[in-house]
């Protein structure tokens, strides 16, 4: 990619969880939660990651911060490879990268006060006197819109949105450059979701943050992200700038996902062609031989069942892993445009 050096470079990240079996508890297989994911994130950018449940979104987020030990691949954040770093060096690197968790209830220790929770990163990484830490804690509470009076309360006394703000304040405490937001709004009410997303955007402007925003809410991702990666069964099937992806998706899975987004206008909603995928996601322990999506793809071809498609770049910043696209490019001379694709061979048109 051109331009300045990306803040985050993920190359061929794999996260396989072993399946142990037999009397001797030997490894008999692996759940390929993440299977060869590569992406870059520029400073100040938001990369949205979408996909259905169990496709490995959260695992990517956690492996990028090395909360899981990745099976293979490299994660270069700010010029240093996180995946191969010794523990103590990694500990000192932690302040540059932080995480906001999905469940604000579970991500706060019920036995610590808000001040204790927000102050924990400061206790770990600074040797400031108590008064300075407290001042910083108040500063952070102001930044995320929490009343300073709440500092001595415990997490159970807060609503979901407020708890998520506490979690965000904790992530901000050490002035990180990069924050992984692991479905930060999934557990919140719709009205609160907007608040939290707006807060995240405001903080991004204020502190120049870079986000990896994991979500299954496509409209929210459209709102906050600059680029979007679509994941299916541990792989990125399509990645493009947000406008391109939502207006002209190339991968059948992306099309299916987008067709499922509810349309606020009922008359449009009634006329919309919904692509309903049949069947279930295959088990990541035993993915199909060819393309991961071939079992459910509405436009599946013979080649899809045998050969895993290469990830190709079809426009600057727009990568797709699909035989439809690859064949198009090779037979591009005949002038096929995507409008000519026979639509919905397997899919049902509602």
């Amino acid at each position, binding site marked *: 990619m051109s331009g300045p050096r990306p803040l985050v470079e993920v190359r061929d990240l794999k996260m396989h969880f072993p399946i142990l079996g037999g009397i001797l508890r030997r490894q008999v297989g692996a759940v390929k939660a993440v299977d060869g994911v590569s992406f870059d994130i520029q400073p100040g950018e938001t990369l949205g990651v979408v996909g259905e449940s169990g496709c490995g979104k959260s695992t990517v987020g956690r492996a990028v911060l090395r909360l899981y030990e990745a099976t293979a691949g490299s994660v270069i954040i700010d010029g240093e490879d996180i995946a191969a770093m010794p523990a103590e060096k990694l*500990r*000192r690197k932690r302040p540059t990268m932080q995480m906001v968790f999905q469940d604000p209830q*579970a991500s706060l220790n019920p*036995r610590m006060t808000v*001040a204790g929770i927000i102050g924990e990163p400061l206790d770990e990484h600074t040797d400031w006197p108590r008064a300075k830490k407290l*001042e910083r804690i*108040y500063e952070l509470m102001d930044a995320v819109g929490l009343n300073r009076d709440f500092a001595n309360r415990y997490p159970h006394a807060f609503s979901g949105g407020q708890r998520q703000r506490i979690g965000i304040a904790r992530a901000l405490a050490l002035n990180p450059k990069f924050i992984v937001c692991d479905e930060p709004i999934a557990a919140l009410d719709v009205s609160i979701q907007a608040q939290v997303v707006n807060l995240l955007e405001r903080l991004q402007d204020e502190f120049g943050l870079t986000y990896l925003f994991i979500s299954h809410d496509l409209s929210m991702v459209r709102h906050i992200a600059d680029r979007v990666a679509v994941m299916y069964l541990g792989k990125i099937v399509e990645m493009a700038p947000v406008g391109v992806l939502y207006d002209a998706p190339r991968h059948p899975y992306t099309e299916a996902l987008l067709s499922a987004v509810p349309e606020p206008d009922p008359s449009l909603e009634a006329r919309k062609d919904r692509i309903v995928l049949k069947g279930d996601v295959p088990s990541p322990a035993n993915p199909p031989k060819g393309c991961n999506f071939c079992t459910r793809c509405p436009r599946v071809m013979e080649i899809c069942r045998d050969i895993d498609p290469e990830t190709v770049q079809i426009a600057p910043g727009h990568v797709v892993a699909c035989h439809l696209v690859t064949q198009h490019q090779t037979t591009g001379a005949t002038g096929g445009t995507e409008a000519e694709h026979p639509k919905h061979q397997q899919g049902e048109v509602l």
Partner: protein
Amino acid sequence: MTDAATPPSPETARIRPPRNQWWDVWDQFKIHRGALAGSVVFLAIVIFCFVGPLVWPYDATYIDIRSRNQGMSWAHPFGTDQLGRDIMARMMSGGQVSLAVGIVAMALAMLIGTGIGVLAGYFRRIDGLLMRMTDLFLALPLLPLLLVMSMLFRQPLSAAFGVETGMFLLIVTAIGITSWMPTARVVRGDVLALKEREYVLAARSIGTPPRRLILRHVVPNVLSPVMVSATLMIATAIITESALSFLGLGFPPDFPTWGRLVNDGIDYLQQYPSRAMLPGVFISLTVLSVNYIGDGLRDALDPRIRGR
């Protein structure tokens, strides 16, 4: 931004700074009626046992054969035993030993149990080893083990620390290392569940090293089951000690403990039932009060229950 630490603004000064969390615990403990009553009773028993001998004229081992088997009177509120020793004095010095054995053995068992449970639950690599060790200890028959221990260590310990301290150490260690296993199991189970919680993951993402992570996030959250087994443990320890003394493996026969007083009293249960019942009542009161204290403490330590 970080470096520009402004001096506390007047607005900040108005807000009460975070105080020590133990004040919150105390505030909650104060309003738990059972816990307060328990504390008063327990304190009274402790004062009776440790301050009592200083003001009570009789010695626990003073034999006055002429006034043996007396009933309750002003001179001997709890009566005298078959050798004319004042039972109240014996209750006092017996209580010292029993309380000390109970509390120290409980502390030892909790320490070992929590430690092993947390390590086994948190570090996957040593889980199997530690749990099999726990199974091993669970499978050990208690009495033969104690017999062997007292046979092996009684003489050297008595020589090194004197008969009473030596026996105290022996009994406390024996009880402690044979009763930590249930705690370890319970704690391990809780830790296994806790370490998958997101706040533990969050602490790791902050860069908290395992040692502090365990002390800050894991141990405080397994405190409830530990508290419960700790309070039950005191009772078990006092009773085990009496059983040991009865079998001649514990303190020497003339050395009073509550458990031994009960055993001595059983022979005279028909004629002087109070002789066995009084120490029994003291044991029960101690256990009951400690239970209530533990109950209150557990509630006070949990912010979710606090303030209700």
